[in-house]
């Protein structure tokens, strides 16, 4: 146990943490992109505006209290990423791939997630409003809504499940 903590602390130390930054063009973000990827970066309270990140890889990145507006995440690969208290608005996430990632208290608003792919992901209190959820495929997903856990092994109608969850939450509200 002690060893494990030590490793985590070590990992925490070597991860870059970016706070209170606004990224409004690709050049701002370029300095953090290596190997075609944003790798192991923790973004806290950052804003991302009008960026075209088509095909980029996000490896083990954490996004806390971040806002994404008018972004293209088309064909991006999110692997082992964590989104917490994030808002994703007017963004293109078509054919984005989310693997081993989690969303907690996040909101997708007016975003296009058509043909995106979720596998081994967790969605906790996360909502999708006025967003295109057509043809999303999900495998091994866990969704939590109002302390209810929904497990999805494989679904081609993940959109319907998400819509149901959303409507349930708005009914409760």
């Amino acid at each position, binding site marked *: 146990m002690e060893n494990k903590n030590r490793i985590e602390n070590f990992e925490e130390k070597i991860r870059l943490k970016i706070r209170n930054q606004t990224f409004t063009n690709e050049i701002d973000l370029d300095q953090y992109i290596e*190997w075609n990827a944003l*790798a192991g970066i923790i973004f806290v309270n950052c804003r991302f505006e009008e960026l075209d990140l088509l095909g980029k890889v996000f490896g083990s990145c954490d996004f806390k209290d971040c806002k994404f507006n008018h972004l293209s995440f088309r064909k991006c690969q999110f*692997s082992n990423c964590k989104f917490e208290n994030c808002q994703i608005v007017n963004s293109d996430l078509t054919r984005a791939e989310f693997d081993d990632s989690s969303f907690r208290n996040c909101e997708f608003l007016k975003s296009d997630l058509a*043909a995106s792919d979720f596998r081994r992901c967790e969605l906790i209190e996360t909502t999708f409003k006025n967003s295109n959820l057509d043809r999303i495929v999900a495998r091994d997903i866990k969704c939590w809504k109002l302390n209810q856990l929904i497990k999805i092994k494989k679904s081609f109608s993940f959109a319907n499940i998400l819509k149901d969850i959303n409507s349930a939450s708005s009914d409760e509200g």
Partner: protein
Amino acid sequence: MDTFLQYENNQNKGEKSYMTKKNIGYPFQYGDELTPKMAGNNRKQAVSYSVLIPSIWWYNLGFGEPIQYYSSCLNESKTPIVRIAETSRVNSISRGGDLGKSGPGPRAKADALKNARKTGGGSIFAQGFTPQPQYGLRPINKPLSCRNNVKINQEQFNGNQNLGGSSPSMETMSRRLSQEYTEYQQKFNSPRVSKRFDTKNYDQEKFKELAKDPRAKKEVFHRTTVDEARAALQLEMEGIVDNPQRIEKPICKSVDLDFKVDGPAPYTHMDAKHPVGSEILRKQNRNVDIKTMAYDIGEKIVDQKERFCGLEQGPKSSKNVLHIVDLAYVPSHEKEIVKEYCLKGAEDAGSSDGIQFLNDNK
């Protein structure tokens, strides 16, 4: 075959060092091309004096003695080379003023003299020719006096592909189209993790069309779209698919596959995947091993084949969709693992039919 510039130091004859294109900051970019025939012209003992202009520049810029260039393959026809025979400094100074000939013209001489007066003429070539920044930096409107008869092939300075012939190779064209692609190759794939198909015999216009982001409002060439185009054109050239085309707007918004094709039956659509090797995965902090990555790709391929079936102008069934898995970014020793697990993932998800591997040679 890497091209190189050979530097021979007059003061240390016999000692040769090779300077790659990267470390030559030399203004040859708008030069002409010298063919072996020209280079081998025996009427003059050496090649035209004009060849020496760059050499003098080189000296004047403080990089050392005049340099000599040789092609690494003199027997190849049309292989661009620049060759300078050993010539004394005196020879290099005394040149004709005829503008039709190579060498500095009156204007350049006037400039040179003017500069010599200003600066005190630090170089022994000051009276002959003093380079000014505009000559070296501007790609157009070159002063006549700076023209020379030497043709330099841009390919020598462009990437590491030199396949003979005059048109750019697919790799070179890819780099020209997309800065993102170039950086990707330089940082991510240098040295190359594996061999990749390349050629000069392809339809450049078609390649450009395929390499464009089909959804973008303006003309954009992403690294991803360029790689997709390369895979599509390679498949066409290998006779595996017929006439790959991007799916036009607005159809591509709903049928979100990379290409449509004219066959062979049963294929009507096509999509490309570009997996990477384990070292890259580690550097990208993706926290998955190569087997999991490949297995996931296999599963996703099966899902994707079914995803757009039945849509207007979409594939009728999953059998109509061909998936390319381009292993260009997978090191040779990992290609088999990626293939095996990709097929396994697809098999477990339903079927491994309709998957074509590219650049999978060891």
